[in-house]
């Protein structure tokens, strides 16, 4: 039972890492991306992960927005233009 639970957690972590990589790739390619999450805290956690993964690339964010329709939080991230 414990093994199955560990396997599920590992799979979720891998999916999370893959999604994070995709978002970071989009950011580096297009110079901009929009993160979404169900809570503000989750959104900031995702942002910190992106920040760590792109390391020395300076990033900027706007204000966090919340969808009128489903309550999803969004954060626009741009690479700082020098």
């Amino acid at each position, binding site marked *: 039972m414990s093994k199955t639970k560990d396997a599920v957690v590992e799979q979720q972590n891998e999916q999370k890492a893959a999604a994070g990589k995709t978002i970071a790739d989009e950011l580096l390619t297009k110079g901009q991306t929009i993160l979404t999450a169900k809570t503000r805290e989750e959104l900031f956690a995702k942002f910190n992960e992106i920040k760590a993964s792109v390391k020395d690339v300076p990033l900027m964010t*706007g204000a966090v927005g919340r969808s009128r329709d489903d309550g999803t939080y969004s954060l626009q991230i741009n690479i700082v233009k020098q």
Partner: protein
Amino acid sequence: MGTLKGQNLRVLVHDGDNVFKVIAMATSCTITETNNTEDASTKDDVGLASKPTTTNKSWQVQVESLNVLDAADMLTAIKNQTPFLLAWDQTSTSNNQTAQQASFSRRGTAYISDLTLNFNDRENSAKSVQFTGSGSLAVGMVQSATVAAGSYTKGQFVRLFLGDDNTDTPSKVIAAAKTLSLHVSMTMEEATTKDTEGDWSIQEPTALNYDISTNALVSSGEVITSEVQANDLKSMQDLYEAGTPVKWQIANVSGDNNRTKGSVIASGSALLTQLTINAANRQTATYDAQLTGYGAYNVGS
């Protein structure tokens, strides 16, 4: 034909994909086209009436919008004087976004000359953008694409943090804050010369200024569970009396009492230039603080 409603006359911005898109979540727009004139009446003219002749033509576009997800982008654009290709046009009633290429539609190049971001407690945050045109207007004839539905930002989730001086990392919010406004203004100067063909005014940026305004209760009596400290009227009084710049950040927040810093939108140094204490009979005592930017601001941390 019925009247044209304001939601179907919109300002569009050219994006990288060679189409124009409406400014998202706009609540109003005003387009001002001016024929600047000088009086050409002479001693040969009988009577008192003046006879104006055109010296040059200038234009400005003002847009108010509830979208502040792009706040950092806008702050960068005004600082870097990024040119925008703007258009205004009638838009379709089916989605309020598709350009109809109306006969009055026009397009031209403009720069952001004034930007105000408002983050007021419990209100939808908003931006007010003024674009100053540089050069001629052409007939619109733009192709448009739609923008996705926007997201709203309640003002209590964006806060001003101050440091104790110009070296200290900003870590203190303004206690019991009610309003927050960041206003950036780029002074534009006429740069048309005899070499400039046509009547259109060419504008050049000359100086960038910004100020931050906030209003807060002198005392609120709220229970604070957050460990994040705050400036109150006493510490703001100290900053005023010190008369030296202090580091600031405007950041997204969450957590206890909405005080935990999330991502930083903008930062810099500023001088507290005015502190106004308001105490009307039977009303809650408040104070207004205005900080004037010292040097350029930064976007992000």
